[in-house]
C-alpha cells in the first residue's frame, strides 16, 4: 500500500517534471528557434511619407530695364505676381514661389548697352551673377526702343527670360510672367504628371509626353547603329567615335552628375527593312502607318546589352539601290524634312539617303556619312526621350543652344520632375513592401533590407526638406539615393526564398509533430492534478 502510494507520488513528480520542462524550457525554445528573423522597419515613417505633400520652391527675380517704371509700379507688379503665382494648387504637389521685383542695376544697364545680340546679353547677365544658381531665375523686362528688341518673350540658354515692354498697363505684365514661369520655366504640369505616373493613378489615358520619355534610371545605354543593307554596292562608313565625342559627349558630361549615359556604336551589314516602301515618281516613301512595323524586325538584329539599364537605340538606315531615294511622308502626304521618326521609350530611326553608284560601276563605292547631320537628329531625339522638350511656340521663343544641347533651366525642369518622380516611386515601393511584409508575417526581413529601407526613408525626408528649401540639386541627389535604396529593398531576392503558406496551413505541419507528444504529457498532468486534489481532500477533512 505504501509502495503504491510512493509509486503514485513518483509518477506525479515525473509528470510534473516533464510538464515543467515542456512548458518552461520546451515551449520558449520552440518559439525562439522557429521565430522568423525580422528587422523592425519604420512603418509609421513610411505611412507618414506616403501622405506627405511634396512642395518645391522656386526663386524668381524680375528686373525691369525700363526707365519709366516707378517704385510704385514695381510694387504693384510684385503684388500682382504673387497673386498670379499663388493660384490654385494641386493638393499633392505644391509649388511655392519666392519673388523679388526690382529695377535693373546700372551694371546690368551697361550690359544692355554693350551687347549686340540677345544671346550675348544672356551670357553677360548670367556670368555677372557668377555661376547662375539652379532653381533661381531672372526675368528681364526689356524696353521697346533699346538696341535689342524682341517681339515676344524669349527664354535664354541659362536661367534668364526676356520679355518685351508691355504696351500699356505695366503691372499687368505679371500675368504673362506667371504664365511663362508656370508653363515653361518650371513646367508644373510635367512635374504633376511625373508624380501621378509614379504614384500609379492611371485612370487617365497617358498623353504623349508621359509615354515618350524613359522612366528614371541611374543609367541609360545609348546605342548608335548604322544599318548598311548592301555594303557590296555602297560601302557607307561613319566616323562614329569623333562624331560622338564632338556632339554627344558634351550632353553626356552635362548629365554625368545626375545620371550616367553609356554610348556605344555598331554597324550592321546586310540588314534589310522588312517593310516594303510605296513607290511614286521614282521615289520611295513610307506613310506613318508603315513605320511601326519597321522597328520590330530591326530591333531583333540589334543585340542585347549586358546591363539592365533602359536602352535607347538610334539607327541610321542608308537605303539600298532598289529603294533609293527613300522618304517618310507625314499624315498629309508631304515629305518629312527631317526624314526621321522615333518611338517612345525606344529610340529613333533616321533614313539617310546616299546616291548609290550606277549599276555598271565596278565594286563597292565608299561613302562617308556626315556625322553632324546624324547627330543633329539623334541629339534631338535623345532630348525628347529624356524629356527635355521645350519647343518655341507662338507665344514665346527659345534661344538656340550650343552643342551642350541642354539649357540650364531645362536641366532644372528635369531635376525637379525626376526628383518628384523618385520621391513618389520610392514612397509607393516602400508602402507596397510594408504592406506585403505586414500581410505575410513569416517573410524573413534581413538586416540589409532593413538598412536599405531606413536609408530610403532618411533620404526621402531629407529630399523633401531640401526641395522645400529650394536646393534642387541636393534634393535630386537625395531622391536618387532614396529610389535606389527602396528599389533594392523591394526587389531583394531574399524576400522570395521560401514559399509562403497561409497561416492555417501551418497546423498541418505542427499537429503530426506535437499531438503525439502533447497527449501523454497533458493526460499525465491531469492525473497528477487529480492525485493532488485526492491527496488534498483527506487533509482538509
Amino acid at each position: 500500500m505504501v509502495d503504491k502510494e510512493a509509486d503514485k507520488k513518483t509518477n506525479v513528480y515525473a509528470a510534473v517534471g516533464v510538464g515543467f520542462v515542456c512548458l518552461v524550457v520546451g515551449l520558449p525554445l520552440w518559439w525562439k528557434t522557429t521565430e522568423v528573423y525580422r528587422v523592425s522597419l519604420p512603418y509609421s515613417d513610411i505611412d507618414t511619407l506616403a501622405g506627405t505633400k511634396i512642395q518645391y520652391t522656386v526663386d524668381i527675380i524680375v528686373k525691369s530695364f525700363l526707365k519709366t517704371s516707378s517704385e510704385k509700379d514695381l510694387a504693384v507688379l510684385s503684388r500682382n505676381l504673387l497673386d498670379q503665382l499663388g493660384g490654385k494648387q494641386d493638393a499633392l504637389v505644391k509649388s511655392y514661389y519666392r519673388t523679388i521685383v526690382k529695377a535693373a542695376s546700372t551694371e546690368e544697364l551697361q550690359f544692355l548697352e554693350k551687347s549686340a545680340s540677345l544671346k550675348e546679353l544672356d551670357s553677360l547677365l548670367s556670368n555677372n551673377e557668377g555661376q547662375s544658381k539652379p532653381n533661381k531665375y531672372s526675368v528681364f523686362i526689356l524696353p521697346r526702343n533699346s538696341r535689342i528688341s524682341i517681339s515676344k518673350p524669349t527664354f535664354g540658354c541659362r536661367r534668364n527670360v526676356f520679355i518685351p515692354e508691355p504696351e500699356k498697363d505695366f503691372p499687368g505684365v505679371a500675368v504673362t510672367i506667371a504664365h511663362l514661369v508656370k508653363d515653361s520655366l518650371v513646367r508644373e504640369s510635367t512635374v504633376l504628371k511625373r508624380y501621378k505616373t509614379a504614384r500609379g493613378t492611371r485612370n487617365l489615358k497617358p498623353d504623349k509626353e508621359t509615354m515618350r520619355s524613359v522612366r528614371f534610371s541611374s543609367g541609360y545605354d545609348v546605342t548608335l547603329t548604322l544599318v548598311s543593307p548592301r555594303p557590296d554596292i555602297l560601302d557607307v562608313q561613319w566616323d562614329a567615335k569623333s562624331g560622338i565625342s564632338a556632339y554627344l559627349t558634351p550632353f553626356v558630361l552635362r548629365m554625368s552628375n545626375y545620371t550616367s549615359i553609356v554610348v556605344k556604336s555598331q554597324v550592321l551589314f546586310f540588314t534589310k527593312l522588312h517593310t516594303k516602301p510605296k513607290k511614286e515618281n521614282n521615289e520611295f516613301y513610307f506613310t506613318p502607318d508603315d513605320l511601326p512595323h519597321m522597328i520590330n524586325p530591326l530591333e531583333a538584329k540589334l543585340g542585347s546589352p549586358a546591363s539592365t539599364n533602359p536602352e535607347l537605340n538610334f539607327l541610321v538606315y542608308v537605303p539600298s539601290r532598289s529603294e533609293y531615294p527613300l522618304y517618310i511622308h507625314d499624315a498629309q502626304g508631304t515629305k518629312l524634312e527631317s526624314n526621321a521618326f522615333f518611338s517612345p521609350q525606344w529610340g529613333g530611326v533616321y533614313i539617310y539617303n546616299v546616291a548609290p553608284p550606277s549599276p555598271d560601276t565596278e565594286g563597292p563605292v565608299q561613302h562617308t556619312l556626315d556625322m553632324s547631320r546624324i547627330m543633329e537628329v539623334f541629339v534631338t531625339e535623345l532630348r525628347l526621350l529624356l524629356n527635355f522638350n521645350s519647343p518655341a511656340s507662338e507665344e514665346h521663343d527659345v534661344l538656340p543652344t550650343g552643342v551642350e544641347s541642354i539649357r540650364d533651366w531645362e536641366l532644372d525642369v528635369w531635376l525637379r520632375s525626376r526628383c518628384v518622380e523618385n520621391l513618389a516611386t520610392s514612397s509607393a515601393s516602400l508602402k507596397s513592401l510594408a504592406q506585403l511584409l505586414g500581410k505575410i508575417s513569416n517573410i524573413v526581413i534581413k538586416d540589409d533590407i532593413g538598412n536599405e529601407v531606413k536609408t530610403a526613408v532618411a533620404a526621402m525626408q531629407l529630399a523633401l526638406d531640401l526641395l522645400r528649401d529650394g536646393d534642387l540639386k541636393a534634393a535630386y541627389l537625395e531622391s536618387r539615393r532614396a529610389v535606389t535604396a527602396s528599389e533594392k529593398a523591394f526587389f531583394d531576392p531574399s524576400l522570395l526564398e521560401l514559399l509562403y503558406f497561409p497561416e492555417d496551413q501551418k497546423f498541418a505541419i505542427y499537429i503530426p509533430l506535437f499531438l503525439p507528444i502533447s497527449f501523454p504529457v497533458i493526460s499525465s498532468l491531469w492525473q497528477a492534478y487529480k492525485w493532488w486534489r485526492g491527496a488534498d481532500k483527506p487533509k482538509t477533512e
Partner: protein
Amino acid sequence: MSAPMGIGLKFNKINFLSLCIGLFSLTIGVLNGIEVDDFFTSDHTNNWAVLVDTSRFWFNYRHVANVLSIYRSVKRLGIPDSHIILMVADDMACNPRNPRPATVFNNVNEQINVYGDDVEVDYRGYEVTVENFIRVLTGRLPPSTPRSKRLLTDEHSNILVYMTGHGGDGFLKFQDAEEISSVELADAFEQMWQKKRYHEAFFMIDTCQAESMFLKFYSPNILAVASSKVGEDSLSHHVDPAIGVYVIDRYTYYALEFLENVQPNSKKTMGQFFRVCPKSQCVSTVAFRTDLYPKDPNKVLITDFFGSVRNVELLTETISFKNLSMQDTCSKESCVETSSPKSSQQLKYADQFPMPT
C-alpha cells in the same frame, strides 16, 4: 518572300480603315476639348511575353509543342526575343525517344518545326520552378541574372502570360515536384501591379480546370482566358503516330489556327479571340474573365498582346549643329583620348597545352 507582297496589297484597305478611325477619334477629341495630337494611338509602348511549359517527360510532348507554337506566333507578330521569357521544362527535341531529333512538331503533317533554328529558351529543364516563375514576374531576381532572363517591364508595357501543363482545381503542377496555387499567382500579379510592372496583362492558360487559376485574380487591367472551366478536363487534339505521342492540345491548336491568320497590322480583336474554340471543337468550355479589364475586349486589337506595334512620332524639327564643326567642339583639351595609354608590351597568344607525343 510572298508574305511582304501580301502585306503590300492590304495597305489601301488599312489606310481607309485608319482614316475612318482617325475621323472618329477626331470627333471624340473635339467633343472632349482635347487635342487629339496629344495622344498616341495605343496606350502602351512595348510588349512582353512570358511563355511557360511546366511539365516534363516524353508523354508531355504536347505541352512543349504548345508553348513553342505560341512562341513562334508572337515572334512572327513582332515581339523580339529580348522581350520574350520562354520557360520550357523539358528538352523534347533532344529526348532519346524522339524519332526526329532536334525537331518539335505541333501537327501530324509535320510541316512546321516549331523548334526551328531561332529559338531562345530562357529557363530550361529544372530551372523551370515555381520560385523562378514568381521571381521573373515580380522582378525579385538575384543581381547576377542576365538581362535576357528578366522581365524588364514598366507601367507602359503589355504582358502576355501563357501557361500550359497539368493542373487541377486551383493549382498548376510544375515539373513533378511542386505546384503553383491560384492564390500565389494572383498575389504575384498584385505585386506586379503595385510596382507598376504592367499596363495591361493577358493571361492565357491551357490546362485541366484552367479557369480556377484566374478566379482568384484581384489586380486591375488583367484579361484572362482559359481552355476549360472548373471541373472540366482540357483535351489534346491529335496524335502523331510517327512520333507516338499527342502533339498539341485542343485549345492551343485552335488558338494558333486563329493567330496564323493575324498579321502585324491586323485589326482583329481580343473579342474575336475569345470566341475561338467553341465547345464543339474543344470539348471543354473556354472560359474568360473580363471584369478586371476596363476596356471592351471587342475593341482591343489582338496585336496589343500578341504582337508589338509600337507608337511612333515623326520628328518635325531638329536642333542645328550647322555652325559647329567637329573641331570647334572638340578642342585638344576636351577631346583627348580617354582610353588608357596602350601598353608597349606586344600581345601574343598563350601557349597551347603541351600535347603528349
